[in-house]
């Protein structure tokens, strides 16, 4: 009886020490904890109008290492702040023991910016649908044109 009490005590102490470790394991710095999809409306010259979904990552920390939200919305490049790589949800990320984070990219610019050529930018160019032109556009992780407005 006495020895069972000791074992119970030791088990309780051990559980109490391990529990916070498990709790921290819920959030791994730099990992993506789910995909958030939202819809965007755009309009532009020539009667361009668009409505399409953008994926972004819900991150346990600062959102720096996951994402996907690239696109051209009536010619305007759309990107989620500080995003790169592919988005996984928490369950899968945890199952895989965490995913090595891609280097953070903090900007997107149109490839057609003066001075740029396709060859210069190929290693990092991203092809995205340009629905207005019924083709694909190329954007370059370079300088981010934020979509938010307001003065």
């Amino acid at each position, binding site marked *: 009886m006495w020895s069972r009490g000791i074992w119970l005590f030791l088990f309780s102490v051990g559980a109490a020490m391990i529990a916070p470790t498990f709790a921290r394991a819920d959030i791994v710095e730099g990992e993506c904890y789910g995909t958030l*999809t*939202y819809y965007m*409306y*755009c*309009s532009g010259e020539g009667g361009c109008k668009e409505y399409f979904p953008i994926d972004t990552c819900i991150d346990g920390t600062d959102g720096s290492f996951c994402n996907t939200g690239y696109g051209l919305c009536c010619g305007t490049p759309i990107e989620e702040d500080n995003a790169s790589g592919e988005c996984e949800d928490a369950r899968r990320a945890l199952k895989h023991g965490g995913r090595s984070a891609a280097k953070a990219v903090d900007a997107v610019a149109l490839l057609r910016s003066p001075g740029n050529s396709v060859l210069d930018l190929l290693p990092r160019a991203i092809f995205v649908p340009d629905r207005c032109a019924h083709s694909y556009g190329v954007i370059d992780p370079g300088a981010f044109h*934020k979509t*938010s*407005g*307001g*003065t």
Partner: protein
Amino acid sequence: MPIRRFTRAGIYVVVWFGAALICRGQSGTAPKDENIATPKPPQLALVDSVVVKSEMAQGFVDPLKCDGDGNLYLMSAVDATSGIRKLNARGERLALFVANSASDLQVQLATYFSVAPNGDVYQLAFLRKTIDRAVLVYSKDGKYKRHIKLNVNFDWVPSEVASFPDGDVLVAGSKSDPNSDVHVKLPFTALFSSSGTLRKQVALEDDEKIQDMAVSGDSRVVPPDHPFSNMAVVGGQMEAAGDGNVYLMRRMSPAIVYAVSPDGEVVKRFSVDPGNADYMPISMHIAGRRIAILFREPQTDEVSVKIVDLEGRELETYDEPKVNGRGTLGLAFACYLTNPKERLVFLYTANDGYLGFRIAEPQ
């Protein structure tokens, strides 16, 4: 006696012929008078266009909302600093609802929002360093009032929120399927108290069907280029109506609409059929006892607005007016008003990136 019987029969014949003639006239089976035109159903006409040179807008994040006074609420990004802009019908900014004004939270993303009848704004928030989800509550002048931490014991992604008069909130979202090795998101809708306690999970009739579609990889719900989301849920809409219920729309074709009472009961369910399964609902607005749902054909971007009452009875269908084959209103349907007259407001990006309003009325 035979004469009397004959007379009675004659009366019957005369009455029958008379009734037949009257019915013939009313039922329209009589030869048509070509000079009498059949009244056309009302069509939308663009009646005004406003460029707001004090506001820039390169794009608009769903949802777009308005209140009973015709004030518009729009956001252009989901980060914590951009905020929701509240503008009056002339485009003058009345308030800005910014998520990072919630100094008691670290907000990473601020997404879907709804405007309560008293003007308070409820917005979903995703927090840093935690998998907790919250609802931010702002007063109508843009001041942050408080937050509601949504207490559930699993990871989930809320997509829509609206409030009841008592401060409780209805939240619809999705969660991962624990029994699946693939990224299947299952619908989850619940009523939370104003302090964030899960009061009740709300069972919606079509969720099993939506779940089956997700599990089977149906591209209407899980498109190949967005494999981690359930589009029937994330593309939904939610809004409180004057009858005290919150109306939730699923992005299906036909659109499915549920009315949920303040105690979390589904009191109505109806569908709104665009008449063509290719047309998908993308926005919903409620004004008085009317609901306006905008449907879009994704290949052609043609749109049609269905007006139904709060019971789902179809009242009108408006097609987008066109000039030279091009639609004149756009997709960003921001506001539906019925008082003092029926009016629909659309947003667009004007030259030089300024915000523009297009106002249409049925005529």
